[in-house]
C-alpha cells in the first residue's frame, strides 16, 4: 500500500501486464480485505469512535455552510505567514497558474507527492506540454512511471507488477530517468525498495520545486497538513526552495483544535494504522521557502449548491468506502471513469462534472445500496441517500438516461473480461486525448454499442449474483 491518503488516476495498466486477470483480481481482493481487517481492529480499539465520527461530520458541515468565511480566513492567515494565495475556478486555470509559477523559477523539473487534486486536473500533462518534467515520488507511482503504464488500484497502484517484473523495470528504465539500478539487483522487496530509495534520493536532494496537495487546510491559522507513509512527501515539502500546493476548497477545517478529530479519524480509517508514519504541518513560507497555495474550485461549488449532495464534500479521501463495497470489489477502480473510484466516486463525479454523459448518468447506479459505505465512512456521508437523489435526477432528465445508465452499469459488472478490454482501450485513448478521461462506460457509448435494456432492475440483478 502506498499509504498516501489520496488516489490515483483510475486508469488501467498497459496490455503488457504478465499477471492474469484472475491473479490481479485475487491480489486486489487480498489487498482490500487485508486493509479492511486492519481498519476494523484499530477503529475497534478507539472507544470514542462514534463520537469522533459525529464531530468530524459536524465540523465539515460547519465549514461547508460558511465556506466563504473560512476561505477568506484561510487566505488572510496564509498571506500573513508569508505565503501567496491563488484562486483557480477550473482545471485549466489551476494548471495555468502552476505552470506559470514553475516557469517563473526557471526550473524544468519538479518533484511531486501524489495528490488527488493534481490528478483531477491532469497537472502532469499540462506541465509536460510546457516542457516541465514532473517526477512522481511514491514508490508505486515510480514503478508505474518507469514501466510506462497505468496504476491499477487506489491502495496498491502497482499491484499488477510482481517482484521480478519490478526488478526488470528498474534495471531497464532507471538509467534513463536518473541514477541507474545496481547491475546485481536482486528481486526481494527490500533490495527493490533500496534501489528506489537511492534513485529518488538524488532527485530529492537537487529538486528546486515541489508540488503537493493537502489533506487539510486550517482556516484559523493557515496551516496545511499532509499525511503519508514513505517520506517522499517530507522530501518534496521540505527540501525544494519553492513549494506549490494545489488544494480543493473543500479541504478546509475551521480551527487548529479541529485537527484533533481528523488526525484520529483519517489514519485509522485509511490505512488501518493508529497513526501514519509521517505527517507534515506547515504555515505559510517556512524555513526560507517560497510558498504558493492554489485554491481549486473545479466543480466543487456546484456540489455545494445541492443540499443533499453537498455532504460529498465532507470526504477526507480515506478510501474505506472502496474497501467495503461489493461493487468496487467486482468492478475495480477503473470502471468509475475518474480519479475518484468506488462509492465516493459514484456520488462525486456526477456532481463535479454534472450529469453530462452516459458515464456520469450511470455512476449513481453502480451500487447495490447496501449501505456498507455509509456505515464505514468516518465523516458519515450518507452515500446511498445521495445515490438515490442522483438517480431521481437522472430519471427526471427523461430520454434514454436511466435505461442506458442502468444497462451500462450492468454490462460492466457483468463481464470482467469485457471490462479489462475496455480498460485497456481507455488507457490507450487517454494517451492521445488526456483531457477526455474516457471511462469504459463512455468508451462503450462512443462506439454506439447500446446495451440491451435491462429486463430487471440493477438491484434485482445484483441480488441474484
Amino acid at each position, binding site marked *: *500500500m*502506498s*499509504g498516501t491518503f489520496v488516489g490515483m488516476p483510475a486508469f488501467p495498466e498497459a496490455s503488457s501486464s504478465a499477471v492474469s486477470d484472475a491473479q490481479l483480481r485475487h*491480489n486486489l481482493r487480498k489487498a482490500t480485505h487485508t486493509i479492511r481487517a486492519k481498519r476494523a481492529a484499530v477503529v475497534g480499539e478507539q472507544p470514542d469512535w462514534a*463520537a469522533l465520527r*459525529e*464531530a468530524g461530520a*459536524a*465540523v465539515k*458541515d*460547519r465549514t461547508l*455552510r*460558511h*465556506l*466563504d468565511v*473560512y*476561505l477568506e480566513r484561510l487566505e488572510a492567515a496564509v498571506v500573513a*505567514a508569508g505565503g501567496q494565495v491563488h*484562486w483557480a*475556478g477550473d482545471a485549466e486555470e489551476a494548471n495555468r497558474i502552476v505552470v506559470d509559477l514553475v516557469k517563473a523559477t526557471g526550473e524544468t523539473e519538479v518533484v511531486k507527492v501524489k495528490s488527488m487534486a493534481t490528478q483531477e486536473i491532469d497537472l502532469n500533462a499540462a506541465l509536460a506540454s510546457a516542457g516541465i518534467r514532473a517526477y512522481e515520488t*511514491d*514508490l*508505486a507511482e515510480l514503478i508505474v512511471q518507469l514501466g510506462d503504464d497505468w496504476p491499477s488500484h487506489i491502495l496498491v497502484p*502497482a499491484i499488477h507488477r510482481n*517482484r521480478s517484473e519490478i526488478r526488470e523495470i528498474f534495471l531497464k528504465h532507471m538509467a534513463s530517468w536518473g541514477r541507474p539500478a545496481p547491475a546485481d539487483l536482486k528481486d526481494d*522487496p527490500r533490495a*527493490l*525498495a533500496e534501489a528506489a*530509495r537511492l534513485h529518488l*534520493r538524488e532527485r*530529492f*536532494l*537537487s529538486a528546486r520545486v515541489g508540488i503537493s496537495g493537502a489533506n487539510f487546510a486550517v482556516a484559523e491559522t493557515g496551516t496545511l497538513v499532509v499525511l503519508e507513509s*514513505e*517520506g*517522499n512527501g*517530507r*522530501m518534496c515539502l*521540505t527540501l525544494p526552495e519553492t513549494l506549490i500546493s494545489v488544494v480543493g*476548497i473543500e479541504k478546509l477545517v475551521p480551527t*487548529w483544535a479541529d485537527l*484533533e*478529530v481528523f*488526525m*484520529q479519524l483519517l489514519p485509522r480509517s485509511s490505512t488501518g494504522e*493508529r*497513526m*501514519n*508514519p*509521517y*505527517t*507534515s*504541518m506547515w*504555515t505559510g513560507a517556512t*524555513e526560507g521557502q517560497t510558498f504558493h497555495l492554489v*485554491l481549486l*474550485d473545479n466543480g466543487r*461549488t456546484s456540489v*455545494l*449548491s445541492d443540499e443533499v449532495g453537498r455532504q460529498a464534500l465532507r470526504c477526507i479521501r480515506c478510501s474505506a468506502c472502496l474497501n467495503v463495497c461489493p461493487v468496487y470489489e467486482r468492478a475495480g477502480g477503473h470502471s468509475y471513469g475518474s480519479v475518484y473510484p468506488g462509492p465516493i466516486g459514484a456520488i462525486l463525479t456526477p456532481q463535479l462534472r454534472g450529469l453530462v454523459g452516459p458515464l456520469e448518468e450511470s455512476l449513481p447506479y453502480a451500487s447495490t445500496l447496501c449501505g456498507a459505505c455509509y456505515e464505514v465512512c468516518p465523516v458519515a456521508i450518507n452515500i446511498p441517500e445521495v445515490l438515490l437523489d442522483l438517480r431521481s435526477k437522472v430519471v427526471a432528465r427523461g430520454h434514454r438516461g436511466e435505461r442506458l445508465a442502468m444497462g451500462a452499469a450492468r454490462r460492466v459488472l457483468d463481464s470482467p473480461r469485457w471490462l479489462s478490454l475496455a480498460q485497456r482501450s481507455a488507457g490507450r485513448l487517454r494517451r492521445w486525448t488526456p483531457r477526455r478521461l474516457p471511462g469504459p462506460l463512455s468508451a462503450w457509448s462512443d462506439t454506439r454499442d447500446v446495451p440491451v435494456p435491462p429486463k430487471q432492475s440493477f438491484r434485482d440483478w445484483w441480488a441474484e449474483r
Partner: protein
Amino acid sequence: MSSRDQILARVRSALADVPRTEDPEDFPVPRDYERTRSGPDVVELLVDRLVDYKATVHEAPEVAAAVAEALVRHGARRIAAPSGIPAEWLGEAEAVRDDPPLRPAELDALDGVVTGCAVVIAETGTIVLDAGPDQGRRALTLVPDYHLCVVRRDQIVRTVPEALERLDPARPLTWISGPSATSDIELNRVEGVHGPRTLEVLITGEIASTG
C-alpha cells in the same frame, strides 16, 4: 471580476439555503469524544507502540551516556546536532552544527542526527518535532539515515487532543510514527524508504538542555 471573487460569489450563491443570520459557530459541533482516557502508564504504552512500529526504544536514566553508547553501537561518527544538543552527549562522535545551514548533499553524507522533541503521543506512538533548538529545521531529521530522538517523560501525553493543545501551529511540525514504510511491492512491508531507516528513541527523566 477576479477568479477569487467569482469563486466566493459562487460559494455564496450555492449556500442560499443557509440563513443569513447564522454565524459559523451557531452550527453545532458535538464534541463528546474523549480528550484523555485512563489506561496503562503512558511510558509503558509508548514503548509498546514504538516496538510495534519497529523502532528501537530504551529507557535511559543517564541521557549523555545513553546517547554516546547508541552512537557507538551504530558506528555513527559524524552526527547532525541541532544547537540545543550539547556536544558532550555525543561522546566520541563529532557534532556537526547546522550553521551555516548544511546543504542536502552534506546532510546526506552524515551518519545520523540526534534531537529532542516537542510532544510525544503514547497511544499512537507518535513523536512530534517542532523545529525547536534541540531539533533543528526539518531537513535535519529527514536526510540522515539514522535518527536518535531523546524523549523526556514530561513530554509524553496519552492522546491526540492532548498533543494538539501543546503544539504551536505557527511552527513547522513533523509527526513521526515509526520509520517510513511501504507495502508497494507484492504487499510486503518494507521499513525505511525515504526518511531515516532507523529510528531509535531514548526515554529519559532528565530535563534536556535547550541551548
